[in-house]
């Protein structure tokens, strides 16, 4: 990837977020059920990585292990070459179902992470205003979630995740509750934010089950298989941005990933 413009993935750099031989079992009744087996994965700074796989393949569990919300049964999560313990405060999460509090307005929903962290009110005001503006929500500050379309709700989710100024943004099927046209717009906007030099987020890990979405957005697609979850193949996407679905290489990648999943 030499010659890439600044901010794009440089896979020759050592990964700054790594899963090393991660296993995870859950108890299914009294019987341990192995959900993830010997999964290793490296993510470089500045990279946009998609995790793709069939539903039920543990993609979301993997995202939560990356964030430190779920502890691996064995194996390690390393962040900047240090063993990650507990929840990593350098990560923001965007949820499939938006996860907004219906009784809080847009401003209050966005500020949640900063309030929980105990930032001073002046700092909270400044940051919330900045990120609300960045995601295009200025004008909606006093709106409640019930007044918002799905697209606007997910912009609130994005602003809330970005507001804590994380280095890494984790997105768990962020567009799957949106209609097709809104999805096209939001994908573009997420890519704009990723390339925005004023954003702290340089690295994005997204879970999706839409192959096209993974190829359109990411530098690398990690294909997962289920029971237990493991990496089938990692596929770099070297197509120029903005990406064109009509590119024959797009089709080839899409077919390749599809054949690995099915």
């Amino acid at each position, binding site marked *: 990837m030499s010659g890439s413009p600044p901010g794009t993935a440089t896979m020759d750099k050592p990964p700054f977020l790594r899963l090393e031989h991660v296993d995870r079992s859950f108890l299914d009744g009294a019987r341990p059920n192995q959900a993830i087996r010997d999964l290793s994965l490296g993510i470089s700074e500045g990279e946009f990585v998609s995790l793709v796989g069939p539903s039920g393949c543990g993609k979301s569990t993997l995202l939560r292990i990356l964030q430190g919300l779920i502890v691996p049964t064995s194996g390690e999560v390393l962040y900047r070459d240090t063993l990650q313990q507990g929840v990593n405060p350098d990560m923001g999460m965007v949820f499939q179902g938006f996860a907004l509090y219906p009784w809080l307005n847009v401003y209050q929903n966005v500020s949640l992470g900063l309030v929980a962290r105990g930032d001073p009110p002046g700092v909270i005001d400044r940051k919330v205003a900045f990120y609300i503006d960045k995601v*295009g929500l200025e*004008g909606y500050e006093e709106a*409640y979630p*019930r007044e918002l379309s799905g697209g606007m709700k997910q912009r609130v989710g994005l602003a809330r995740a970005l507001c804590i100024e994380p280095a890494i943004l984790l997105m768990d099927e962020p567009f799957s509750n949106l209609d097709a*046209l809104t999805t*096209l717009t939001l994908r573009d906007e997420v890519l704009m934010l990723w390339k925005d030099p004023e954003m702290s987020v340089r690295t994005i890990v997204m879970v999706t089950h839409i192959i096209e979405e993974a190829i359109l957005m990411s530098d690398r697609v990690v294909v997962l298989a289920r029971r237990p979850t493991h990496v089938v193949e990692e596929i770099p996407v070297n197509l120029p941005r903005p990406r064109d*679905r009509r590119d024959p290489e797009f089709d080839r990648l899409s077919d390749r990933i599809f054949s690995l999943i099915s």
Partner: protein
Amino acid sequence: MEGDPEQYPGISRIMGLLKVLEETGGEGDLYQLGVDLHLELGEELQLVRAAESLGFVQTPGSEIEITELGREILKKNINGRKHLLRERLLTLPVFQAALRWLEQEEDATLPSETVKNRLSEQFPHEDSETAFQTLVNWGRYAELFGYRADRGDLYVDRGD
């Protein structure tokens, strides 16, 4: 406003429509577009009419094509889109009228019922409920109007 926010065509959907058109060479058949996007006819027409009223598409016959303005807004960043939309909204009679009504008030604020009543008087061919939702939602997006749901007040967004 407790109504379903998906009743009117949201800006994100209009931008999505423009993107689809641009990716398919800038034009297409209205019927085929609806089939491709899995939109019901009524839903598609509402969306297309909204995009047309903003000057982003044209619909000669049964065709649809993106305009220069439509291409221009797609190229802009998130806030650039908001600014261009604001300019467009200020050319629409419903938005012009609502802005005039609000600016005649000392606090640039009116109860939603008053606005809806005036909409049905002055724009009898429009559904006043949908027109009001569009005022609130496009108006908020373009930072032209604000709306306080707890009091049901529409006001001019002066950025404070």
